[in-house]
């Protein structure tokens, strides 16, 4: 029987302090208050002084509340029963289903040995041409969507979840608006994907500490499924909220802030989560897609900046479109050589012409004279934006490549595209009716 402590010495923010013996660092405890029972985690030991971070928050906790240590770190139940269910950051059900207590696994476990990783080699097809053609997503990649508030990043994530060829989806929601949570649920239910999905959701109104738990819980479960050979897609939205929770707690803990109030270990904290993305040599894989909102559309803000150094590229979502400039999949070279002979050439060629279009557009707006070539580019740019970049476009890779050739043929003569002659003779659309 574990001893119950009935005296809390100090309460500051979400952190309470009790005097106790024999407590382990990282151990869990329960705090029983008038509002119910919450989990709490040991975050500092100093002699017999134990600092605990209360998951449900410090609000309403009384100095007379009971604290009982559980003797184990944070764990979550892991089994096939999780599929189709919705939980909060502490692992409690959010739907009306039963609580799960079997087969508990620890979260935040050690890192994968780099020598057991393999070089990624499988493309994940998504049906979005701006991803499949221009910045292919690769199994085991970690990739955030950089965006600003108001952009449809959650819609993009939901579509990716539905269309990506993976075995299962784990959604980690952090600081989600309640309607966004409902949107995800409905979208996945309608798409018939609910039975292969697990939700760990922290909404904006939930206690801030639980927000920190979401990625760890989601990734611990993902890791177990991956070890069983499953190809798991993990969606984390929005990682900026996660970072903001870190900031909030670090400041309450009176830690020295480093940059715009964020703690100095922000990079490490983010990396420890993103680096869970892995392709095991003899098992499954974890692919992580995150959403990172950039406050003020500023990519040098600490959160997107640190994220960029960790992840393998990023997708920029701006004006309802995935921008070709700035967006980058660092792993695309690993897969786009084996898709179709024209893939790489089309990828580079189309973007080069689109860059030229942007230049012409700039020239036009400054009032310079438009040459015939400029006019061709202007036409091309508009068609490209309409038929490829628009988020509603939903076609498989091969069809998207064919469509690229059609667009080129509509706007240019073959030799103007700068593509290799052998590709031109093979892929240039043959019977085009001249207008």
């Amino acid at each position, binding site marked *: 029987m574990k001893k119950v402590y009935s005296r809390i010495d100090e309460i500051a923010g979400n952190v309470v302090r009790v005097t106790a*013996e*024999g*407590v*382990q*660092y*990282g*151990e869990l405890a329960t705090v029983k208050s008038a509002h119910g029972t919450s989990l709490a985690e040991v975050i*500092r*030991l*100093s*002699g*017999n002084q134990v600092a605990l971070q209360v998951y449900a928050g410090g609000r309403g906790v009384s100095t007379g509340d009971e604290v009982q240590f559980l003797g184990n*770190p944070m764990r979550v139940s892991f089994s096939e029963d999780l599929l189709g269910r919705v939980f909060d950051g502490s692992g409690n059900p959010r739907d009306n289903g039963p609580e799960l207590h079997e087969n508990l696994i620890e979260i*935040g*476990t*050690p*890192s*994968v*040995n*780099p*020598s*057991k*990783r*393999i*070089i*990624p080699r499988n493309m994940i097809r998504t049906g979005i041409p701006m991803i499949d053609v221009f910045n292919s997503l690769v199994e*085991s990649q970690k990739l955030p969507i950089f965006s600003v508030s108001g952009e449809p990043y959650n819609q993009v994530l939901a579509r990716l979840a539905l269309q990506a060829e993976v075995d299962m989806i784990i959604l980690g929601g952090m600081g989600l608006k309640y309607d966004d949570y409902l949107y995800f649920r409905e979208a996945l239910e309608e798409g018939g994907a609910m039975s292969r999905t697990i939700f760990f959701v922290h909404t904006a109104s939930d206690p801030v500490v639980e927000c920190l738990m979401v990625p760890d819980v989601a990734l611990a479960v993902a890791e177990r499924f991956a*070890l069983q050979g499953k190809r798991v897609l993990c969606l984390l939205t929005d990682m900026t909220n996660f970072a903001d929770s870190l900031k909030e707690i670090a400041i309450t803990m009176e830690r*020295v802030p*480093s*940059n715009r109030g964020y*703690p*100095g*270990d922000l*990079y*490490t904290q983010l*990396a*420890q989560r993103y*680096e*869970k993305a*892995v392709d*095991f040599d003899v*098992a499954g894989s974890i692919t992580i897609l995150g959403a990172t909102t950039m406050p003020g559309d500023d*990519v*040098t*803000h*600490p959160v997107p*900046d*640190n994220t*960029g*150094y*960790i992840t*393998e*590229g990023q997708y920029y979502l701006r004006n309802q479109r995935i921008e070709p*400039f*700035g967006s980058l999949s*660092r*792993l695309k070279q690993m897969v786009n050589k084996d898709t179709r002979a024209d893939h790489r050439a089309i990828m580079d060629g189309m973007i080069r012409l689109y860059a030229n279009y942007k230049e012409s557009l700039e020239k036009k707006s*400054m009032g*310079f004279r438009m040459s015939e070539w400029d006019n061709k580019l202007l036409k091309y740019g508009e068609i490209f934006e309409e038929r490829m970049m628009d988020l509603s476009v939903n076609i498989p890779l091969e069809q998207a490549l064919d469509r690229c050739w059609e667009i080129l043929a509509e706007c240019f003569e073959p030799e103007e595209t700068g593509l290799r002659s052998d590709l031109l003779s093979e892929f240039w659309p043959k019977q085009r009716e001249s207008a």
Partner: protein
Amino acid sequence: MKQTTGQVVGVSGNMVTVRVQGQVRLNEVGYVALEGERFLKSEVIRIRGDLAEMQVFEMTRGISVGDEVSFTGELLAVNLGPGLLGQVYDGLQNPLPQLAEKTGFFLDRGVYLDSLDAERQWEFTPKASPGDVVTAADTLGTVPEGIFQHRIMVPFNMNGRYSVDWIAERGEYRVDDTVAEVRDERGGKHQLTMRFQWPVKRAIEQYAERLKPSEPMVTKVRMIDTFFPVARGGTYCIPGPFGAGKTVLQQITSRHAEVDVVIITACGERAGEVVETIQEFPELTDPRTGRSLMERTIIICNTSSMPVAAREASVYTGVTLAEYYRQMGLDVLLLADSTSRWAQAMREMSGRLEEIPGEEAFPAYLESVIAGFYERAGAVRLADGSHGSVTIGGTVSPAGGNFEEPVTQSTLKVVGAFHGLSRERSDARRYPSIHPLDSWSKYAGLIPHGKTEYARDLLFRGDEVGQMMKVVGEEGTSLQDYIVNQKSEFVDAVYLQQNSFDPVDGAVMVERQRHVFDLLFEIISAELDLESKDEARQYFNQLRQYFLDYNGAQWKTDKFYEHENAIKELLKERKTGIDSHARQFVEQAAETVGSQG
């Protein structure tokens, strides 16, 4: 001596506070007993009275107040001996592949393995004889390791003079077999094996003299070797925002650099990138030796998700191994990617220690620590007259890509060359994305200074014209300025940019760089007879096309000369004389050389 022990009295993040019974040293290694079965390696970083604060090189979850701590009396050290080359270590010199055999997919806590293969037999050839007087770092014998003769040396920590009593005969020995017995001046006997330890935070200084780094370290990247050269024994840094190609540039350098041994320290970066190196290097052949690249490489890998405290150790582990191989008269290149992550690890520890923060919360000693690290590079003359060097190249990942931050600035103060990467260049797919105007180097390169200075000047002027043209348009630019701009774009396109995936263009040897630069110089220093801007543009487009084909042709093949002649013909058509600017630069350079000579 009685072993010092202690008990944990506090835990905060990866720092534990320990009440110590007995003596304790700063930077001493201790082990925290976790539930009596796992022992977590830690290092003392501050002592106050009988309280020692230690950074734990593992996750601290599960440690309780009262847990036993045992101290070793030793500083954090690495094993030195044959068998280091080709290994993949973590920051504390644990061999990762062997660790995987033992613990599977994950890095379990408290498992430490021998960094050298104790069973492997080495073919020992004695070099010293009984009766010889030796001092630290003198060679006792050699064993072949890959393509090198690995010197078995008197351990560097043995002060004073020793006389050799006995030395093993030629034959097969393991690293822990005794290969020599020596006697100190007071008659004490010492048995020496092929292995010894050295504390990572102390520089190895067993050399006769430190030399000025003068010989270029060829990287086969044109822009570096020609414009921003690095010397053997020198230091350089590569700061750049994310996505600008720091890691790719380091990977290219690790493959092509003309040095004997390459040590790659992946410090707090992506695991995926290390995996590429680990899996590709054994397949790649070293063009100089025809053997696997891995045979001359050591990888030290402490990726971003591995424990933070070991990041600092990984950088020092790397440089210590580099110094060890330097003692064998070899040229060693240490690549550290990224030093910012190491600085951040220091910042985290400093925060836990509640030290007064400096700029951006980095500790006040950031500068001196960075300086101390880069100062471990150097070219040296060893006691036996042979030369060795350690060259250090570190990447820096400045927050927001802004070079005005503490880590970049502290690094720039102490390095000899600065290869600043620019987001604009990488967005424009101009690789390597080293900024040709902002970067600098204090070392002498392959090409006479005057010529490269002219080319740099041209790039500056071309950039100015380009800026102006954006405002006034092509119409408002004079033909002369336009040609300057075209020339500078031409230099960029055919010389600065290099396709690292191309088998020929990917690595350009010295002879070819000299040859090609001469031709390039002839073009950019020429007065050209061009009537209009359209004509100029077409002319340079044509030249560029020829030159790119030329860059792609194998050295000194018929194709190579064919392209070269085509370029020369095209140049002859329009060349009317030599640009006055160019003449000035070459003459000035000749004068300075003349006055020096």
